[in-house]
């Protein structure tokens, strides 16, 4: 089955990096996976997003016009992507930074106060990873183990960061 996820937020919130973590976890599980960053003449503080497609067979297009999942880390992302989600899909909302004005009744909305939780953990920058934890639990796309293993590979020499991220990931995972 082909599942596409769009992850969006401000530049600097780490939306591209959690997209990569998700991609890496899928690769470690032996799935077909593609990752497509949005790029262009973006402005500082503007929006960034990436699309991750995970499947059991070859992926035709890395682009998602109607994604199953959307992670919106800020208000502009919520506005931009909520109408694209497939009927029956799930919207993951960083409720610390968004005022949910959901105009659709055919999607599930999962609220995660990611920034607040990350701040409580002592590092607000890890809000993205808190969200990733919540996302993999609810979406059941990849296992927690694979993501942890992926983090180990990407943050090979940065043990301190690894510990912070692991804690954030597991906290997010245990929210649901």
């Amino acid at each position: 089955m082909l599942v596409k996820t769009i992850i969006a937020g401000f530049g600097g919130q780490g939306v591209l990096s959690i997209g990569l973590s998700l991609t890496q976890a899928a690769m470690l599980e032996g799935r077909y996976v593609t990752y497509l960053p949005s790029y262009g003449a973006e402005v500082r503080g503007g929006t960034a997003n990436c699309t991750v497609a995970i499947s059991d067979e070859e992926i035709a297009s890395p682009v998602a016009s109607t994604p199953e999942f959307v992670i919106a880390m800020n208000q502009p992302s919520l506005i931009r992507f909520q109408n694209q989600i497939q009927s029956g899909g799930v919207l993951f909302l960083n409720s610390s930074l968004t005022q949910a004005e959901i105009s659709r009744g055919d999607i599930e909305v999962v609220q995660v106060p990611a920034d607040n939780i990350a701040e409580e953990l002592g590092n607000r920058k890890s809000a993205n990873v808190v969200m990733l934890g919540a996302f993999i639990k609810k979406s059941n796309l990849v296992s927690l183990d694979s993501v942890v293993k992926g983090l180990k590979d990407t943050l090979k020499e940065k043990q301190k960061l690894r510990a912070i991220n692991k804690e954030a990931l597991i906290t997010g995972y245990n929210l649901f």
Partner: protein
Amino acid sequence: MAKVLMNGNSAIGEAAIRAGCQCYFGYPITPQNELTEYMATHLSRKKGCTFIQAESEISAINMVYGASLAGVRAMTSSSSPGISLKQEGISYLAACELPAVIVNMTRGGPGLGSISAAQSDYFQATRGGGHGDYRTIVLAPSSVQELADLTYKAFDLSDKYRVPLVILGDGMLGQMIEPVEFSYEAPKEPIIRNNALRGAKGRTSRIVKTFTSNPATVEEINWSLFRRYQLIKQEEVVWDTFMVEDAQLIVVAFGIAARIAKGAIKSARIEGMKVGMLRPITLWPFPAEKVREVANRTNYFLVFEMNMGQMIEDVQLALEGAGEVSFYGRTGGVIPTPNEVLRVISRLYYQKGLK
């Protein structure tokens, strides 16, 4: 080696280094910057290798010209507008019978166009591109893995026939990240071709040039190139097929478009439509014979490209009027979806009364 995650541009860089590319000359342009960046980081650290960010695209291709004359494996890359600038140098490389690998991660055109993926440089790549009577081998990968594999092959092919070679990718292939595996190691010793200009000590000096005042000499050079092109056409045509055996309708597509089409074809098959695909991997030489062969099974072709219809001319030439060829394309950097292509396939399938 285990699989790693890499974007297409970086995968070309890594594959080129492993193929023994010793010199890379580039000038930045979106959407291929990751390749220049990769070479700046990785090639420049390799012993005996050179990375230069040139002052312009024209300068970069002429540095390739020089490096190739010196007998080493050399490469440059750019995207559409930058590739246009390189055409003079490519023509000179062809005239001097010099190998070189040129990567074009195509973007929307004409003009500066857009920075999103397109396939509108098909004509430019497959018809030589610059002035004069010459061709370049053109390879069209459709995944990050294939980008890596074909880059490796590109250096061998270009050396074997002493012709410049174009890898025709697109912005999306360059930017997207996929798992990729490199199954070969970089050579221990640098690869230096015979007959290179590396100093005339102990031999008479040689001059490599593209101008002579005697037209008959130039004609002879053209014949020499032409004979080689005939050989390449015989030996090096590569294609891929997907479910063509019982197909009533054949989609012909290359690169990223072929990948999108494949998704559409899979859905069409689920709906009971007998659709297959022919994907040219070498765009020049074009798999004309293969097109004629599948035409023995069906008369109906759909050419799908991310341009206004360029490869369709090669399909029509190959068929010599035998089949019925339709076209669907999006251009300017617009990325069509598999569903969009499926709608075109369904409409065509029923309009033509196929079963």
